[in-house]
């Protein structure tokens, strides 16, 4: 029997099942064990256990710890009518049943315990020093088919040395699932340079993160503006700047590099979007600059000295240009196709003297019919007029049912990521009416939003936590209203605050992008 087979056989054995059942019983009895979660986590994640050779010894050690800790169980003596102050704020949020465990911390806490109970009476009992980490598989078992879970938090701190039981709160479970993977860029928070940066993918059903590309693979150049066709991990594109850079296109799993600049006589590709047919990619071509405020709440102003709209026809290997959208009379940015591929939306504005006249720069959202056969653009139709409604409207994203347009609205300028006042707004395209979105916004920036493939979830980035570092939020759209959003859970909740990188260009994908690192790097040799 091979080593690996031996482990598998062991995991299948009744001995292992016995341990697992015992732990389940203990949890159901709600016995507070500090290491219960550790052991449970261990038992639940078979694939991790398989990596170990001497499983038997490990179980003995775990059992020993179990006995030791069982002797020191703690029960909170006080009761509070207040909700616990947890980070992230998951009180009353709505989550999909396939989301990863909603681990949270209780600030300035020495010991915390949480009992998570579903409406079938099944419970999960976890504890930790200042935060709780819930086992992935057990969490999913708990959420499956549930409408809500009740979370009871007990905390021990200087104020409550004997512990306090807080008022339980609920987490609502939506029937609609969320796409299991997301892709995003991580980079230093929006200054000029970078050291490490990359485009990463994360399985949001657990905490697995993998790089799609890091800048060590492309001669330390910038990697940016990735987008996927129809949420498919086999069809995506991104830009790699710097030495031997270019636009990387992967279609049906085959990857190559394109020199958009050469094909379009000087216009490189920036912000992009795939046409649902996978034949076209629309780009805005931007001469992007940034200026730094000396004294201002907004720290940076990002703007284009010129920007145009172009369409790359993959089948014919050519770049299609429409004079209306490549002249210097207007700026065009952030293209977005409607899910049926019949419309191309984008933001447009009259150029002003930047950055001095930032206050006068207002982008409207317009759309043009898109001919799928020829790639030609039709007559212009204004969707959101900044001149009539005010502000600057950027990044239109159409819901998969084609009915709603989610966009980012700031006071002025071309790039709301650095505008504190930027909020997400939504327009009903059938009526032209605005839909209430206050619940997903904050006094700080919200932007870079996307719809999930089923149109029930919205993902976006926010600077609500500290004003400088963007973090990923998810919100449920039930077809009528948005529910309270929640911060993308991390294994250790502190990762949300302590990561010295910022997220942007978040995208949903249905699975992981599978590409060899060497194969990717060879494109930039």
């Amino acid at each position, binding site marked *: 029997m091979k080593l690996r087979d031996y482990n598998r056989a062991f995991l299948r054995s009744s001995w292992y099942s016995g341990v697992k059942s015992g732990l389940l019983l203990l949890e159901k009895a709600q016995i507070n064990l500090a290491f219960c979660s550790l052991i449970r986590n261990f038992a639940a994640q078979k694939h991790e256990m398989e990596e170990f050779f001497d499983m038997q010894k490990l179980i003995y050690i775990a059992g020993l710890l179990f006995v030791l800790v069982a002797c020191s169980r703690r029960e909170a003596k006080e009761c509070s009518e207040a909700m616990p102050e947890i980070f992230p704020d998951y009180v009353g949020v709505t989550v999909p049943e396939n989301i990863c465990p909603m681990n949270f911390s209780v600030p300035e806490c020495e010991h915390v315990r949480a009992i998570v109970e579903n409406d079938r009476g099944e419970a999960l009992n976890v504890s930790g020093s200042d935060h709780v980490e819930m086992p992935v598989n057990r969490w999913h078992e708990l959420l499956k088919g549930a409408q809500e879970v009740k979370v009871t938090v007990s905390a021990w701190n200087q104020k409550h040395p004997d512990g306090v039981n807080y008022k339980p709160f609920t987490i609502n479970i939506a029937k609609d699932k969320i796409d299991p993977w997301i892709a995003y860029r991580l980079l230093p928070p929006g*200054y*000029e340079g970078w050291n490490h940066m990359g485009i990463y993918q994360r399985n949001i059903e657990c905490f697995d993160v993998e790089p799609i590309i890091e800048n060590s693979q492309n001669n330390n150049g910038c990697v940016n503006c990735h987008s996927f066709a129809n949420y498919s991990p086999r069809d995506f594109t991104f830009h790699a700047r710097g030495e031997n850079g270019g636009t990387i296109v992967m279609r049906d799993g085959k990857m190559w590099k394109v020199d958009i600049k050469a094909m379009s006589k000087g216009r490189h590709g920036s912000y992009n979007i795939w046409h649902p047919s996978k034949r076209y990619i629309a780009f805005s071509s931007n001469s992007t600059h940034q200026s730094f405020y000396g004294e201002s709440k907004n720290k940076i102003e990002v703007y284009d000295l010129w920007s145009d709209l172009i369409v790359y026809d993959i089948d014919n290997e050519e770049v299609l240009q429409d004079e209306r959208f490549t002249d210097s009379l207007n700026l065009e940015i952030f293209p977005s196709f409607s899910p049926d591929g019949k419309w191309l939306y984008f933001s447009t504005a009259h150029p002003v003297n930047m950055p001095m006249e930032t206050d006068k720069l207002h982008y409207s959202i317009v759309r043009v019919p898109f001919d799928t056969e020829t790639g030609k653009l039709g007559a212009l139709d204004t969707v959101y007029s900044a001149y009539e409604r005010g502000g600057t409207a950027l990044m239109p994203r159409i819901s998969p049912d084609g009915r709603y347009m989610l966009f980012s609205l700031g006071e002025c300028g071309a790039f709301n990521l650095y505008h504190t006042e930027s909020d997400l707004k939504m327009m009903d395209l059938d009526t032209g009416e605005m839909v209430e979105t206050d619940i997903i916004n904050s006094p700080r920036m919200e932007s870079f939003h996307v719809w999930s493939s089923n149109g029930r979830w919205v993902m976006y980035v926010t600077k609500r936590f500290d004003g400088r570092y963007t973090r990923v939020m998810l919100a449920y759209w039930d077809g009528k209203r948005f529910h309270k959003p929640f911060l993308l859970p991390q294994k250790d909740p502190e990762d949300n605050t302590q990561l010295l990188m910022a997220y942007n260009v978040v995208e949903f994908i249905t699975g992981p992008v599978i590409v060899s690192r060497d194969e990717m790097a060879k494109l930039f040799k």
Partner: protein
Amino acid sequence: MKSEKIVYSKSSNCKFYYVVVVALMLFFAIFTAMKFPYTYITMEGDSFWISTWDFWLLKLTITPALTNWIADYLMQFYRWPFVAASIEALALGSVALLAHAVFLRITGSKRHFAWLGLLPAILLGFYCTFNFSFLLQSFFFFVFLYVFTLIPSFKGKLLMGLLTVPIGFFLMHTPILLILVILQALLILKYHGVKKSPYWLLPLIMLYFAPIIYSQQLAFIPFEKRYAGWSGYFDPLTSHYTRDGENLKKIICLANEGRWEDILYREHLRSLGQRGNITLLHYALLAESALGTLPDNLLDYPIREENQFLYPHERNYISLQFNRLFYLNLGVFDEAFHQAQEYSLQMVNGDCFSSLRQMVDYSIEEGEWEVADKYLRILAKSSCHKKFVEERRETMEAAKKTIKKDIPLRADNFVGGYPLPIEMLRLARYYGDTPYRKKMVDYAICSYILRGDANSFLIALNAFNTYTEKELPRAYKTYKEKITTGNN
């Protein structure tokens, strides 16, 4: 088979060698601590280490991961130069002792050869003093070599040879590992004969595949760095710690502490700056501005244009450090924050203690409590910032009660977007009647003097009533007389 019966000659009476090594270590520690204290302090500022899983994952992307991680950990203590010098002396001394032991075991009774053991340590001491990661790699190199010579049997040696590559890959750069494996092969040839040598192809093959596997499974290593990648290690000129000299480090450290009087007079920065050294000229002029004497002494310096007041649009170790201090002197904390952030990105970890500490202070000045708190939480995960974190938390709590800045959402006060005098005058509008405003106006007036722009000079002179009805500083008076007499 002779391989199984090797008896290495015992090293005896090596006391004199040990005494020499200890003496050299002491000399090295005292000499470098006395001669390069600010270089060590700067190295601490440029380093970064926190006890988080994320940081370890980051270190995996920079081979050799474990050695870099250990080096970063130890460099936290470099803020105390004698500790720094002692750590480096200890590493060098260990290399000398290990090399000596290796030579003894290889050369047998010919003990005079063992003195060659000093050579690697001396070379490292001369050429890699401020490259602690390389010192550690050298240390591990000799540890592996020494342990290898301790193993008598061929099978044991082969096992160690096979382990050398996967373990050594976390401890040494591939070229060093290659030398190690080749030396191991030569030792096999010496003690176990030609027949056993072909087995050493196995570690060599492993060494070929190690970077490929590492790149696929852990962190990508660029193709050009997989089997080479030691350029720069032996060239002291590539390290800014050696290149820029101790004196500049000292000036920067004193400037960070705001000890402008000290650096201008005690460190003779004024006279050095007046001799035209561009970097020192920058610092001399900054010190004059900080002390408020720039308007008097401007014309004593060989400055030709306003761009010599700072390094506009430059992003390197020197310029980012200086520009941060320039804007800090003017109270433009956002830009000081920006420059500090950019500076940290120049470091191998992408973050560094000095920048984090500075950004904490600037965030508190700007009332960005959450950002300050974030950095303090991170610094709390290092080994030597307990006091700093406590002090800053107290400062922050006190500041929360007092600082109520009325900061506009947007304002046309872009940094680097305008010529310096215009930038200064635009910024000055947002700084009220403060010393910062006066410094900004002075920079604008001085810039117009350097340009020879008399009209703008006269307009700026009256800006914000800074010099109305006051006796003009020496440089302004001289220039005004010049333009009055038509000698401009």
